[in-house]
């Protein structure tokens, strides 16, 4: 089992950041590498079990299932069903925690997955830096920094 963990401070109150990241169908609105997204079978984006199908700017297609969404804990977990990455048992969680000092937000994004040993380092970099940190950096800029 491989683990990836990335965290950033977002310069906005957690409730504001949550409004953006809560939307399971909203990645094109803030993650720079996502071109378009839809929820399959006409489900609601906050219905546990719903599947988002989104297209990357490089043309790749990913399908992910919403496993958990908590407006109380400000966290969202999902599993990859299909992707161009050679990962299995991939489960990720994006969670927000208020930072009372300055009314900011800690955003944490972590994933666990299985992969071929010789691909592990590259995948950790691709997911940790190329996906999670890139998206969190975009989120920081969206809120003014």
């Amino acid at each position, binding site marked *: 089992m491989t683990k990836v963990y990335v*965290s950033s*401070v977002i310069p906005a109150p957690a409730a504001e950041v949550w409004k953006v990241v809560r939307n399971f169908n909203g990645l094109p609105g803030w993650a720079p590498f996502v071109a378009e997204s839809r929820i399959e079978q006409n489900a609601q984006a906050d219905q546990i079990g719903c599947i988002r199908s989104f297209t990357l700017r490089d043309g790749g297609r990913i399908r992910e299932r919403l496993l958990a969404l908590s407006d109380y804990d400000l966290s969202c977990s999902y599993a990859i069903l299909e992707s161009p990455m050679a990962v299995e048992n991939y489960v990720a969680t994006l969670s927000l*925690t208020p*930072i009372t*000092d300055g009314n900011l937000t*800690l955003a*944490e994004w972590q994933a666990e997955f299985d992969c071929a040993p010789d691909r592990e380092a590259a995948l950790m970099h691709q997911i940790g830096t190329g996906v999670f940190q890139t998206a*969190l950096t975009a989120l920081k800029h969206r809120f003014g920094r």
Partner: protein
Amino acid sequence: MVRVCQSTIIDAPIEEVWAILRDFNGHDRWHPAISFSEIEGGEPVDAVGSVRHFRLADGGELREQLLALSDKDRRLSYCLLEAPLPLMGYVASVRLKPVTDGNATFWEWRSEFNPPAHRRDELVKLVTEGIYQAGFAAVRDLLRRGSVGSPVDARSPRAVAAPVPSASLPRAVSTLAPGQGATTRAIVIERYGGPEELLLKEIGLPPPAPTEVRIRHTVIGVNFIDVYCRTGFFDLLQPPGVPGMEAAGVIEAVGSAVSGFAVGDRVAYACPPVGAYCERRNMTPELLIHLSDDISDEIAAAGLLKGISASFLLHDVHVVKRGAIVLIHAAAGGIGQLLVQWARHLGATVIATVSSDDKARIVERLGAHHVIVYSRENFAEAVMRLTNGAGADIAYDAVGNDTFGGSIAALAVRGHLVSFGQASGPVGNWDIGRFATKSLTLSRPNYAHYTDTPEKLAPHVARFFQALRQGVVRVEAPTRYDLVNAAVAHRDLESRRTTGALVLLPQP
């Protein structure tokens, strides 16, 4: 059940922050509220179930037990076993998370407890600000000093600004030499400590030196600075010594080299060296002030130090002009009452903060345009609302730790924060870069630098007495205590139960 949760980002790697917080016996090295810590029974600090015993900076004691410790999650929990405050069922936890983007640390400190309803807000504020936020600032400070892991025995005393450089002060000891001849009754501090250290003694009183006069005190002023002398927070007084820096009285004897003063003159002073808590004393007369017939001894002893301070704060540190918006904290206190009345007279819009409704009524009567009870309302937000978002032009803040950040938030662009005391504790370290967001000016005036020569002092004295005569400011009748009860006066002052001034009467 109330829940308190505070969190911050510490600009240091998580391993460094965890090394500090993991030490269940280390708070006395960094937390300003904790002066002493030990683990009972010599248990290891990281043994779950061990009990730490704290002595607080204010003398209180408490015991806390380690309930859980995880190096994996960088989390620990503990509960209160005994405390001087009713924090019933207090269970707290500390956890850290890495901020991988920048190698910083997220630190969350949270607790649950059951306070009595009538003390709920006060205790929540104490835990939030006095324990957690103060702890954040202290750890930041500790990391900045780079002294992690080394003993911090040389922890600096609380940085209470002394009114004069202490090195220039004669020690009060000389007046304590057992004289062969005359003696006088005085309050003597033989060691730093609580009010109980204020003991009435008979001490020697030599004849005045050629450059000195002898004064028979009629009324002695009690000021917060005397508390700092008593506790040793600064070293204006070296035990054994007599505290006190303000009094009124009559000249009884004049040294051969003194001019301008005669036996029988009514005088007052508000200056070092310490030594006012006594019936009689000798001192050099440079900073003595002649009292005219229309200024009573009581008003002089109760109001001189505060009046001079108010004068230079309003006319020198900042020149308050008509139309200015002035924020005044602790407005029901001694200096606060004078600032409110005087700023109003100068044409300013006065926004005052107080801690209770009773004090709010006092300050309203003194002429404040707006009074904010800060225990009930966020004063910075209130100031912004009252000024339509503009903020205050000047903030006079002697409260310190509890208000400093709010004062900054309440100021207008190009506002001026005048920090002249810290009744609630030191303000801690601030990044002056933050002042750029509003181009703020900060002043930290020191009484001595505005009053330590006759030339500096005279205009403030004249202005204050003139304001008294014209009714611009009124000094309310002070609360009187016999000299022998100086300890009671200190207790009352420190409990913040008092409004207005306190004085000691040497002759019951």
